[in-house]
């Protein structure tokens, strides 16, 4: 019985590894072109999301969820609805935050860190990272996904993040998952669901009153 259990366990491990088994994409030129063309077609995104903050050493995952809006060129709204209420809006060069009713606003140019975070978010969601000099890009693939693995070239960003892994579905090249990996292997995984693309989103959606 113990032997059978061991075999089942190893088969399970093999299956899990096989699912995650990504290999480097040799010829990246066609994929680069396809992703770039796809990102040019996207002018708005509306989606739900689930965020997993994984603290590896502590074996802990903090889960939160909410909804997400993006409108070209640079309007973004993250609205966390569970287990807390928190909204962050990036629009017209400003960061606005509603932290459980307490509203604050920051000029993006006044804070280099906000600027970099904004750049990372928009880069990751829109898939618009080709030709972006702030990241070096490596592509990997498995049966279901292409991964663009972005490594920051800026030292200040590299101190916070070792890579941003953007998961594109092979089916339609849409971004389904984004993984922000920190030095030390903790990471934040954001999974998008119920994605709607190129729908009309009013500018007023990007205002916190």
């Amino acid at each position: 019985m113990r032997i059978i259990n061991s075999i089942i366990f190893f088969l399970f491990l093999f299956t899990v590894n096989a699912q995650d088994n990504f290999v480097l994409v040799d010829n990246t030129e066609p994929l680069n072109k396809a992703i770039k063309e796809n990102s040019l077609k996207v002018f708005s995104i509306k989606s739900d999301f689930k965020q997993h903050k994984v603290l590896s050493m502590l074996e802990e995952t903090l889960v939160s969820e909410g909804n997400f809006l993006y409108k070209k060129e640079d309007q973004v709204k993250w609205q966390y609805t569970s287990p807390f209420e928190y909204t962050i809006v990036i629009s017209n060069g400003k960061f606005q935050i509603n932290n459980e009713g307490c509203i604050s606003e920051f000029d993006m140019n006044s804070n280099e860190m906000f600027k970099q975070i904004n750049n990372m978010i928009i880069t990751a969601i829109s898939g618009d990272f080709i030709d972006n000099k702030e990241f070096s890009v490596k592509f990997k693939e498995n049966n279901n996904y292409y991964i663009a693995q972005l490594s920051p070239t800026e030292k200040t960003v590299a101190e916070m993040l070792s890579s941003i892994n953007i998961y594109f579905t092979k089916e339609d090249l849409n971004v389904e998952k984004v993984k922000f990996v920190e030095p030390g292997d903790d990471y934040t995984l954001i999974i998008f669901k119920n994605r709607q693309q190129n729908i009309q989103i009013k500018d007023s959606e990007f205002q916190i009153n």
Partner: protein
Amino acid sequence: MLILFILPSCSSGYLKDFAKFENSKFIEPIIFGDNFEKTTYKTNLTVMGNNLSGILLIKKTSEEEFRFVFVSEIGLKYFDLGIKNSNVKQEYTTHYLMPALNRGETKDILFNDFSKLTIQYLSKSKPIIYKQTTTENIAIKYNEPDNESVYFLDDNNSNIERILWKNNITGKSQIILSHYHTSIPQQIEISNKKYGLNMDMKEIIND
């Protein structure tokens, strides 16, 4: 029947209306007691004029160690601090501290405040118990080499509702604890006026 003795007053400035109280059967309450494993708080931290918000995870990683990890709502980690008990004194470990927070006395104040919440790790020497002469509320004083801490209990003398501590280097802090669920306070407010540090914590109750 408990045998109670109230002795003449002998106290610090925190304990003006209190007198020493000897009761061999009195058991000091602890925060995050034996059955505690972990919890999370929605937290706002103001320090040196900066406002940071996010989730504070408090986890007991072993019988000897607590970890305090603060991450922003979007997943950016601010700090990861460990407090470990040893036979001699508490050991503080900085697993991670965002460079912007690694200035002045911030880290020391945070360690001091968090260590007060892990009361069971305080000095092995016996604490001194006081009783308020007017209300009969109990206060517990711990004398450590660099710190003086006083824990004030609520009207039922069952939970800790306020902690005052002072230290020559990091000034003094007040910690208010309320809305207890078993040994876990659902709200905690920490303030250190000297360094302008304030921390408001509300426990996140998952549905």
